[in-house]
């Protein structure tokens, strides 16, 4: 991977991290309604995958979707405004944190129904094939989603129809309080690819370059008409599942171990070691990212709520 790309990757990840920290901060100030599922700790996956995608490629996202949006190129201000329920948000306040979409950059939406996005990604892949373009779909979902029927049905169909979809399982070892070993006898979810006759690979999801390179291959494979792949990214969420979750079901040592494997610190170290960036350069990126996030937050805070009657609009197209 070339230097400029790695630096861009780093910047994207930092954007996601600082954005999520901002969401968390605003949440503490009681201005984020409902619940939130933060992506902190998993940034390398969205950034690593989406850095390989073109603007006209698609992604399908989940309840933990802020990072996917940002990585695919959605605007931070409109994303934040949606999370705050404002009229200027991507979905005019109708969707919120769990349901952000930005169709203008191929972000086909986050679904809060676990596993529901998988066949939708397959359908977008079918549409690409029928329309005869060379677009690709990246479909994000969690380890928990891999136990839904939609996982089997959606991936199998993409496989037999040879559709240009890359299925990205973000295995953060837990689905709410349920750890993977309670609900699966296998360790590597990528093994399931064998059952569908497609390539499957497990990768360190906290290593942005590894994710990038693995996704690069799978995306090329799909773009060239060779069908879907399953990539399992091993990762960990730094925070609880959602809003109030103190995540006490995770052993302390395990949490500490994973915090040491922070994907952003990881990449930062590599950049410094390789001499791609000096401390000053790092600091400048941080300042720039901080700045756009402050602006995005301010935009969201200053934006009005939608007028109540708008609730009745857009039920039908």
């Amino acid at each position, binding site marked *: 991977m070339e230097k400029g790309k790695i630096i861009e990757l780093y910047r994207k990840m930092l954007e996601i991290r600082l954005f999520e920290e901002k969401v968390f901060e605003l949440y503490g100030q009681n201005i984020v309604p409902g619940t939130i599922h933060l992506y902190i700790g998993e940034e390398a996956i969205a950034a690593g995958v989406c850095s390989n995608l073109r603007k006209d490629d698609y992604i399908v996202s989940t309840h933990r979707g802020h990072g996917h949006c940002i990585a695919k190129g959605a605007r931070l201000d409109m994303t934040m405004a949606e999370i705050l329920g404002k009229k200027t948000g991507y979905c005019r306040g109708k969707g*919120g944190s769990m349901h952000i979409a930005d169709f203008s950059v191929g972000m086909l939406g986050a679904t809060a129904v676990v596993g529901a996005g998988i066949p939708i990604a397959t359908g977008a892949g079918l549409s690409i094939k029928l329309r005869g373009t060379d677009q690709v779909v990246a479909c994000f979902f969690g380890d928990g989603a891999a136990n839904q029927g939609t996982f089997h049905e959606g991936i199998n169909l993409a496989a037999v129809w040879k559709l240009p979809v890359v299925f990205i399982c973000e295995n953060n070892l837990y689905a709410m309080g349920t750890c993977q070993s309670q609900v699966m006898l296998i360790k590597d979810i990528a093994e399931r690819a064998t059952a569908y006759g497609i390539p499957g690979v497990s990768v360190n999801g906290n290593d942005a370059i590894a994710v990038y390179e693995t996704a690069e291959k799978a995306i090329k494979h799909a773009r060239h008409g060779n069908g879907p792949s399953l990539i399992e990214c091993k990762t960990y969420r730094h925070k609880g599942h959602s809003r109030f979750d103190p995540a006490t079901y995770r052993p302390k040592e395990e949490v500490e171990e994973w915090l040491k494997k922070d994907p952003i610190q990881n990449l930062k170290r590599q950049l410094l070691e390789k001499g791609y960036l000096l401390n000053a350069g790092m600091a400048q990126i941080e300042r720039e990212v901080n700045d756009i996030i402050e602006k995005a937050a301010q935009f969201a805070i200053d934006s009005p709520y939608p007028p*109540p009657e708008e609730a009745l609009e857009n039920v039908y197209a």
Partner: protein
Amino acid sequence: MSMHNGDGKMRVITYRDAIREALLEEMKRDNTVFLLGEDIGRCWEGAFKVTKGLAEEFGDERVRDTPISESAIIGTAVGAAITGMKPIAEIMFGDLTTLAMDQIANQAAKIHYMFGAQAKVPLVIRTPFGGGVNIAAHHSQSLEAWFMHIPGLLVAVPSTAYDAKGLLKTAIQGSNPIIFCEHKLLYPTEGPVPEEDYTIPLGIADIKNEGEDLTIVATMFMVHKALNAARMLKKEGLGIEVVDPRTLVPLDKKTIIDSVKKTGRLVIAAEDCKTAGVTAEIAAMVAEEAIDYLDAPIRRVAEPDTPIPFSPPLEKYVIPDERRIIKTIREII
């Protein structure tokens, strides 16, 4: 509050604890009763903490955490139910019953009938419905009416701690699949519940407030809004009778009709969408069976036909409140 046996001591507990007590008591009473659902075990104890402590009490075999597989949760429960067990399945959010709809509507509901009464399906499906906490379109719906539309299913809609416990015990002891609808906002609400064992039969409505001037039939969280509205209107000298059906299938037509005969005016309030909803069925029933007793047209308070929006002012706009109830009452009084 007439149905408990005897007049033993009462204490005040939450709706959440009332449900937990029913689960606990029935699991103790009958060792074929077991629980299954996502994150109901010791790590999380239910998304709304209803199953708190139950895994410790009964072990992981009887309080089973499942993968995120709603269709398999209900299908598995059906299989266990037709072979001698009494499963109680929790679906974490009512919206997600849609993922298990084949197992609920085509399997659980039809097995007894379709197989000529050879098998029973003693299955309880507990699930929370309702909006009001800004979690948007996939976690806020009220789908009670969907289940009313499927012969073979029972539908309970308790609004108080007392009703929840008594109805759930009856449901667990019964022989039919039942959708036991809970409401997210009701979990922390408190009410008197007897210390002694009691059950409430299905199909018996409860008059939550007596009045002479108008009947409101309300369900779940709307019962409380209707009671608030009744309190406010009492100051103006209006007597509003609040009838809580407590179960939608079976529906206690008699209590509703008797109330309408007394007051001559009917408002129906439920949180689901208006079209083909809970209010529609009750309105049709009264129109068919008691129209001659009505002195004014029937009015309904329900959600407009939209998904539930996220943003607080939008959500507040679609979920009916006391103001809407009072405004509707004034239209016919």
